[in-house]
Each structure stands twice: as structure tokens, then as C-alpha cells.
């Protein structure tokens, strides 16, 4: 199976979607079977892995998207990194706190809590080694579940997740701060 046509269609879909999309969505839009979509994604991954491409196929939390290759970061950061700064830090904090307190948790669950697409933030946190895949949820599609890493514990000076302050302590802390 060559899949040139199918991969081309998937490529266009990934481009038009902007946000990362999951396999089921790709199947629905492309009207291709799960196997063909997966094989097309594999083909795209190889195509974009070539040095002539500045984009690559990114798989994150069971979702796929095209994104700039890591090594282009320094060249693109000025324009595309900075403008997200303020928004990024809060969004990243929210996502990380949800994962820390609700792990194991899937991307969809995080998105339900935050009400927005979590793809970029999860990629950031994965890239920072603050979260990692911890298993598959026993639910349709077997979505990946995420949890925090050892690096996360180190960064926050925790010996284990059990050390995370409890929700009802939030109020006490608030009063202590004042």
C-alpha cells in the first residue's frame, strides 16, 4: 500500500485543524479506516522527518498535529514564543496543577476541566519533563493517562505526591499569607 493520496489528505487535515486532533476525528473527516489513518500518519512522520522539512509530525496525548522542529526553536522564539508568555505561564500552571491533583488523568479530562484545548500546554509540560504518560485509561479508545514526574517532585521540593497540600489547606494558606 503506497498511501500517497491518503497521507496527502491527512496532511491537509492536520494543517486545517490547527489544534491537534485525535485518531477518531481524523477517521471521521478523512473517511478512512483506522488502519489507513495510522499508516498514513506513519508515512507523514517519515516524510517530515527529512531534513528538508522544518515541520514534523507531533503526537501528543493521542492527538496529532504538525509543528516546527525543535532545533528551529531559537530562530522562531522571538516572534512566536514571546507573545504567548503571559498566557502561557497561567495556562501551564493550570494544566500542571490539574494533572498533579487529579493524576492519572487523560487529555480530554483536562480539557473538560479547563474548557480549552490542552495540547500546547501538555506538549510544553512533557517537553519540560514535568509530566509523563503513566498508563492507558480503561475506556473507549484507551486514552493515555498522565501523571507527574520525579523531576516535578524535585522542582517543588516534594518527597511524594502525597505531600501535595490538600485542597482545604488552600484557605488556611490564604489567611496565613495575609
Amino acid at each position, binding site marked *: 500500500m503506497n498511501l500517497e493520496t491518503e497521507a496527502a489528505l491527512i496532511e491537509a487535515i492536520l494543517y486545517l485543524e490547527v489544534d491537534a486532533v485525535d485518531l477518531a476525528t481524523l477517521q471521521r473527516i478523512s473517511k478512512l479506516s483506522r488502519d489507513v489513518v495510522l499508516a498514513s500518519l506513519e508515512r507523514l512522520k517519515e516524510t517530515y522527518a527529512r531534513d528538508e522539512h522544518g515541520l514534523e509530525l507531533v503526537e501528543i496525548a493521542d492527538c496529532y498535529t504538525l509543528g516546527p522542529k525543535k532545533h528551529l526553536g531559537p530562530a522562531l522564539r522571538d516572534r512566536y514564543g514571546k507573545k504567548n508568555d503571559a498566557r502561557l505561564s497561567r495556562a501551564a*500552571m493550570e494544566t500542571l496543577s490539574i494533572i498533579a491533583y487529579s493524576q492519572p488523568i487523560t487529555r480530554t479530562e483536562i480539557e473538560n476541566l479547563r474548557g480549552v484545548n490542552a495540547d500546547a500546554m501538555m506538549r510544553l509540560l512533557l517537553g519540560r519533563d514535568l509530566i509523563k504518560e503513566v498508563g492507558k*485509561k480503561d475506556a473507549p479508545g484507551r486514552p493515555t493517562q498522565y501523571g507527574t514526574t520525579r523531576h516535578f517532585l524535585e522542582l517543588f521540593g516534594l518527597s511524594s505526591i502525597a505531600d501535595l497540600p490538600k485542597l482545604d489547606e488552600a484557605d488556611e494558606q490564604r489567611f496565613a499569607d495575609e
Partner: protein
Amino acid sequence: MTSPQHESSPNHHVRLDQFEGPLDLLLFLIRKAEINIYDIPIHQITEQYIQFLEYAAQIDLDSITEFYGLAATLLLIKSRMLLPNEFADDDDYDDPRQELVQRLIEYQKFRKLSDLMTDQERSAEWTLEPRRNQRSFDFVDDEELWHQIDVWDLLQTFSAVMANLTPERIIDLYEEVSINEKISLINELLETRGEFLFTDIVTRPDSVMDVVCAFLAVLEAVKSSGIGVYQNRLFGDIRIRRRQRRELPNDES
């Protein structure tokens, strides 16, 4: 021609407002009469043109002026053609029709180009547009950002996220996320143990969502799976066990 008819619909009278202007009408008459545009029988075509204008009277004044403007031009050409011209065989002879013919040809050219543009418009009728016009990629490489926050920031952020959840969102959440998981857990426990505590199906006690979903799953199970719920004292442990009911087909006991 006393009653001009449209070629394609002979039963309908041609109306002036069907024409984009006097040149359009003139071209129509020329084509209809099947005459050579380079040798227009000006007498005949002028007569037809004027007859048509008189016939089609009911139109707005703005454009009728323009239609009559061309009529005047046609009459002028006609009168000049009637004048004897001693240079008629000369190369220098200016055919009075020449300017009009050039205008007609130029107009025809733009009509044709206009058709091409209409095709182009049609071919570009559909455009595909990305779902959003902003791609976000994070190249922020500022480790400082992460060192400045502590675990209390994390907690406060989380508690703010939870506080902002509207009731509808919570319903969404349990529908999509956890209720099925809890129901399958209940079924699993019923099979292996027959009786268990509510806290057994709360896998993440510090997650409000988890508790809420576990509770809703129990309510659902009471309704559909034939379980009984017991509580020994107020705020005590909730025990869940299979209800002994004869009418349940799967009830082996």
C-alpha cells in the same frame, strides 16, 4: 421588426432592462440579424434599434438617456453614409462606422473577459480555511518561570480551576469522563466481593470530581444493576451490596 423576440424564449418580449446598456442591445440586434459586424447595414440596424426603444418604453430615465445617446450616434452615422463621398475608393476614406465597430469589438472583448472572470469566480467559489487563525507553539525556554513558583501556587491554581467549574461543566465531565469508569468498577467489585465500601470506588479521594462521579455511579447502579445501599450511622461508611431480587435474571443466588 415590429415585435422583437428573444431567441431562446420566443414567447417573451425582450425588455430593455435585460440589456447591460446600448452596446449590449446593439450587439444583440446585430447577432439576431446575422450580419457582419465589419459591414453593418446601418440603415436597417438603426431602424430596428429605434423601433426597439420606442417599443420598450417603461424603464428608468437614467438608462433610457444612454440608449437614446447611441440612437443619436447611429442616426449620425446613417446620415454621413448617405452623403456622397468622392473618396470612397481611397485608402484614406474614413468609414463613418469605423469608430462604432471598434467600440463594439472592444465591448465584445470585455464581455468575453467578463465571462472568463465569472468562470474564475466560480472556480474560486469555495475556499478552505483553517479552523483557527492562530497556531500556538511554545518556545519559551525560561526555566526561571518554573523555579519561581512553589507548591502553594499549584494548589491555589487548582482550587481556582475547581471553583470556576459551572454545574453544567461538572455534568459534562461525569458524563464523559468518570461515571462509566465508576460503574464498571462497581460491577467488578460486585463480581469479586459481593459487598464493598463506597470509599473503595473512590480512587482519588482528593479529587472532588472523583467523589461526585462515584456517588452518581452508585445512584445509577441502584436504579439499573440491582444493588442495595446501606449506611449504619449518619456520615458513616456506605456499604454497597448486591440486592437479593428474584426477578433479576442474572441473579444466581
